[in-house]
C-alpha cells in the first residue's frame, strides 16, 4: 500500500545547503503534496536535536514514511534510519534525497535552479519511497577468520593485533619475506632507530604466532563472497624447493654460479639464482628464480623443443648437490590453496617511481639512483655495508646531491601531490652520509621543507646545525655527465641565481605511488583506487580505513604514502575494525535483494544468465526462477533482463523507479 503520511525534513546543513537552496520555499512546495503530512526545515538534521525532530514527528504525525533531504546517503542514511526506527518506523521506510552534493554545491552559482532541482530530487525520492516495503535485515553467519594482504609493517601490525584477540589470521605476502619496505631502510627518522632491529622481533612474532597462518611468496588469486563470508584462492608461487625441508643454512647460495639482480636490494646488488630474500628473511627459506637458473632454463628450452639434450650431459645441480636436507627438487611446486575468511585488510603499501622515468635529471646514469635504492647503500646490512659506493665503479663518493620532489607536485612529469615523506628521509640520508663520511660534500636541493610530524622539525634543524648539510632552496632542472662527475644545475629560488655543483652521485627523491599490484587486487575485491594506485577510502576524514565493500578494510601506505608511525597506527586501526566485525556470531545483510513473483515468472531463465553471483536457479518442478538470498547482492541486473517483470529488487521495483523518472523528466 502506497504511503500517505510522509514526513519530509529539509536540512540547512548550516549554510552549505541553505546558502544556495531556498529551503523554506522547498518545504512549502513539498508540503502541498497530498501524501505529505509534514514538511519542515532544520539547521542540522544529523545533530541530536535534528534526529529527535524525526523521532517526535514520526509519533506526532503518525508518519508512514520519511524523506530526509540533506547530504549524500553514504554519510547519514544510517543515522536517519536509526532515528526513525527509534520512533517505531521501519528503517526501510526512510529515504535520503541528496540535495547538498547533487544540487546546492554544484549549482551554487544559480540558487533558483538549485532550489528547483532540490524540489525535483525530493519529489522523485518521495515517488520512489511511496512503495517501499517494510523490511528486516537478513542474518548471515560469520566466519571468524581474517585475511591480511601485504606483509609490510602495517599488515604485520594488523595481523598481530587480530591474532592476539584470538582470531585466526591469514597473512599473504607476495615477496619471499615479510617486512615490506621498512625492512629495506637504513635508519628511521626522526629517532634514527635501526629498522631491522625493531622489525625482526615483529617478523618473528608473526611467524611464530599460533593464530597466524603465513603465506609468503604468494598472491591472492581470486575472491568470492561477501562480508562475513569470503572465499579466497591463494596462489603459492613456485619455489622449486621444499620449504618443509629447507633449513635456511645458505650452503646452496655459496655454490650457485648464476646471478640476477636482487629484488630486496633494488638492483643495487646481485644475488644468486637460488636465493634467500635477505639474511634476516622470515621465513628464512631458499627459492630458485626460474628466469636465471641454468638448469630450469635448460629444462624449459628442452620442453619447448628449442634444444635437444645430448646424452650424458651433466646439467647444473650444484645447489641440490650441497643441500644436506635434500630440499631442492627443481619441481614446479606452484599450488592454489583455498581459505575462508570473514574480513579482509589490504596493506599492499607503496612503490617509488624509477629513476629512469626522469632522464633529464640523469636517471639514465648508473650513479643517479632513487632514495629507496640509496637506503640499501646506507644500510649497515646492505650490499656496501653502510658506506655508499657508486654503482658504476664502486668508488666511495666524495660529494652527493639530493634532489627533493622528483615527480611529486609535478603533474606533467609525475604526480600532482606531495609524497609527504621525502623531505624527512632525504634529511635523514644527508645526515647519515655525514655520519659515514665526515668530509663528504652534501647538497640538498629542496622546494620547501615539509617537516610536519612529531619530532620532525627538530630533526631538520639538527641536520642543518649539527651536520653542516648544504640546504639549497631551488629546483633542479638538469643533471648531466661532465667527465667522471655529474653536474647538477638548478636555480636558487632565494637568491635567484643559477646554481651548479659537480658531484659523484645524485639521489632522486622520486614520487611514491601505490603498489603496482594494486589494480589487480582492487579489481578482485571490487574496491576503488585512483590513477596513482592508491586505494580509495570510504570517507577521507571519517572512514579512512573502510572501503565501500563491507568487510574489506585498508591500512598503511596502500591508502596513501605515509610514515611508519602512521602505517602502524592504521594497521592497528583496521585490526580493531575487523575484530569488531568478527565479534558477532551473525551479521546483518541488507535485505535489498531480488525477489521473484512466481505467479508471473515464465521460467525462461533470462535472469539467470545475467547473475554474476550464480544466485538464481530455475526450479525444475515449478519451472520458475528462485533467488538464493545468501548469494544475491542486489545489483538488479536480472530484473533489467526479465521480459515479464517477475524478478525485481525489493524497494527498487520498476514501478518505483519509473515514477521517479517521470518526475525527473517532467518539463516545466
Amino acid at each position: 500500500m502506497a504511503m500517505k503520511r510522509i514526513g519530509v525534513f529539509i536540512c540547512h546543513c548550516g549554510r552549505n545547503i541553505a546558502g544556495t537552496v531556498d529551503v523554506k520555499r522547498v518545504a512549502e512546495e513539498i508540503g502541498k503534496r497530498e501524501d505529505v503530512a509534514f514538511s519542515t526545515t532544520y539547521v542540522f538534521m544529523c545533530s541530536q536535536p535534528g534526529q529527535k525532530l524525526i523521532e517526535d514527528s514520526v509519533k506526532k504525525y503518525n508518519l508512514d514514511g520519511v524523506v530526509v533531504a540533506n547530504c549524500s546517503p553514504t554519510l547519514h542514511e544510517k543515522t536517519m534510519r536509526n532515528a526513525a526506527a527509534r520512533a517505531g518506523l521501519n528503517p526501510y521506510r526512510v529515504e535520503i534525497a541528496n540535495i547538498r552534493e547533487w544540487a546546492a554545491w554544484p549549482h551554487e552559482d544559480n540558487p533558483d535552479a538549485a532550489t528547483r532541482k532540490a524540489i525535483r530530487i525530493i519529489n522523485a525520492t518521495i515517488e520512489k519511497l511511496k512503495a517501499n516495503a517494510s523490511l528486516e535485515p537478513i542474518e548471515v553467519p560469520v566466519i571468524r577468520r581474517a585475511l591480511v594482504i601485504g606483509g609490510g609493517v602495517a599488515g604485520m601490525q594488523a595481523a598481530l593485533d587480530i591474532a592476539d584477540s584470538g582470531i585466526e589470521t591469514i597473512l599473504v605476502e607476495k615477496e619471499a619475506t615479510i617486512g615490506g619496505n621498512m625492512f629495506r631502510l637504513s635508519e628511521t627518522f626522526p629517532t634514527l632507530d635501526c629498522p631491522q632491529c625493531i622489525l625482526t622481533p615483529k617478523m618473528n612474532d608473526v611467524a611464530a604466532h599460533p593464530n597466524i597462518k603465513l603465506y609468503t611468496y604468494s598472491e591472492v588469486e581470486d575472491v568470492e563472497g561477501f562480508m562475513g563470508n569470503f572465499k579466497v584462492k591463494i596462489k603459492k608461487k613456485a619455489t622449486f624447493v621444499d620449504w618443509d625441508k629447507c633449513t635456511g643454512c645458505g650452503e646452496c647460495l655459496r655454490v650457485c654460479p648464476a646471478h640476477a639482480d636482487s629484488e630486496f636490494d633494488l638492483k643495487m646488488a646481485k644475488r644468486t639464482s637460488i636465493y634467500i630474500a635477505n639474511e634476516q628473511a622470515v621465513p628464512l627459506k631458499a627459492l630458485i628464480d626460474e628466469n636465471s637458473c641454468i638448469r630450469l632454463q635448460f629444462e624449459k628450452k628442452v620442453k619447448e623443443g628449442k634444444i635437444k639434450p645430448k646424452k650424458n650431459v651433466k646439467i647444473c645441480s650444484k645447489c641440490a648437490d650441497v643441500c644436506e636436507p635434500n630440499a631442492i627438487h627443481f619441481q614446479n611446486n606452484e599450488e592454489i590453496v583455498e581459505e575462508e575468511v570473514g574480513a579482509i585488510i589490504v596493506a599492499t603499501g607503496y612503490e617509488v617511481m624509477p629513476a629512469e622515468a626522469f632522464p633529464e635529471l640523469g636517471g639514465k646514469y648508473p650513479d643517479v639512483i632513487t632514495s629507496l635504492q640509496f637506503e640499501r647503500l646506507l644500510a649497515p646490512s646492505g650490499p656496501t655495508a653502510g658506506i655508499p659506493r657508486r654503482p658504476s665503479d664502486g668508488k666511495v663518493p666524495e660529494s652527493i646531491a639530493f634532489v627533493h620532489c622528483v615527480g611529486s607536485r609535478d603533474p606533467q612529469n609525475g604526480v600532482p601531490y606531495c609524497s609527504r615523506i621525502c623531505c624527512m628521509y632525504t634529511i635523514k640520508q644527508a645526515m647519515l652520509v655525514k655520519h659515514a663520511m665526515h668530509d663528504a660534500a652534501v647538497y640538498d636541493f629542496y622546494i620547501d621543507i615539509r617537516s610536519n610530524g612529531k619530532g620532525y622539525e627538530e630533526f631538520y634543524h639538527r641536520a642543518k646545525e649539527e651536520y653542516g648539510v648544504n640546504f639549497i632552496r631551488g629546483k633542479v632542472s638538469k643533471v648531466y655527465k661532465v667527465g667522471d662527475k655529474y653536474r647538477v644545475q638548478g636555480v636558487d629560488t632565494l637568491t635567484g641565481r643559477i646554481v651548479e655543483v659537480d658531484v659523484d652521485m645524485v639521489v632522486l627523491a622520486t614520487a611514491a605511488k601505490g603498489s603496482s599490484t594494486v589494480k589487480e587486487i582492487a579489481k578482485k575485491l571490487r574496491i576503488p583506487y585512483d590513477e596513482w594506485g592508491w586505494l580509495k577510502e570510504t570517507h577521507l576524514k571519517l572512514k579512512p580505513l573502510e572501503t565501500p565493500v563491507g568487510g574489506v578494510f585498508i591500512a598503511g601506505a596502500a591508502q596513501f604514502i605515509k610514515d611508519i608511525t602512521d602505517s602502524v597506527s592504521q594497521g592497528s586501526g583496521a585490526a580493531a575494525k575487523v575484530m569488531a566485525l568478527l565479534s558477532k556470531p551473525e551479521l546483518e545483510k541488507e535485505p535489498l535483494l531480488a525477489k521473484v513473483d512466481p505467479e508471473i515468472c515464465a521460467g525462461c531463465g533470462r535472469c539467470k544468465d545475467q547473475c554474476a553471483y550464480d544466485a538464481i536457479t530455475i526450479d525444475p518442478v515449478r519451472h520458475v526462477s528462485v533467488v538464493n538470498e545468501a548469494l544475491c547482492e542486489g545489483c538488479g541486473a536480472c530484473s533489467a533482463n526479465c521480459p515479464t517483470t517477475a524478478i525485481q529488487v525489493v524497494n527498487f521495483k520498476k514501478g518505483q523507479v519509473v515514477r521517479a523518472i517521470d518526475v525527473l523528466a517532467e518539463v516545466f
Partner: protein
Amino acid sequence: MTEKKFDPVIVGFFCNWCTSAAADLAGTSRLHYPASIKPIRVMCSSTVDPVYLVRALQEGADATILGGCHPGDCHYITGNYKARRRVAIVKTVLKSLGFEDTRVLLEWISGSEGPKFARVMNDYTDYIKKCGPSEFKYLDSLGGEKVD
C-alpha cells in the same frame, strides 16, 4: 510569443558505487555543472532497464545519461558490460524510429573522477543544447502503458 531559452532536461542514472560517488565528489569539490542534469541513484548500471531510458525520453527528457564504473571495475563484477549491451539496443531502437541515438549517453566515471563527472555533464548539456529539444516526447504511440 517570446522565445524562451532552451533549458534541457537530462535524466542521469548513476550507479551507486562509481558515478554516484563521482557526483558526490564533484559536489564536495564545488565543481559546477548545469542544473539540467536530473540525477537518480541506481545500484548498478545494469539495473537500468532499457524501459527506463525510453520512459525518461517519452516523459519529457531531452536526453539521458547512464554513468557506471569503468570496464572491469563494476562493483557487481560485470554489470557495466550488461549495461553497455542494453544501451546499444536502445540506441538501435531510437535510430530505427528515426530519432537521434546520441540522446542516450553511456559514460564510465569512477568514484575518484569528480572532475570528469563535471566535465561530462557540462559537455553533454552543451551538446544537447545545440541539438535542441527532443521530439521523442511527442511520440504518443509509445505512451499509455503503466509499468509496475
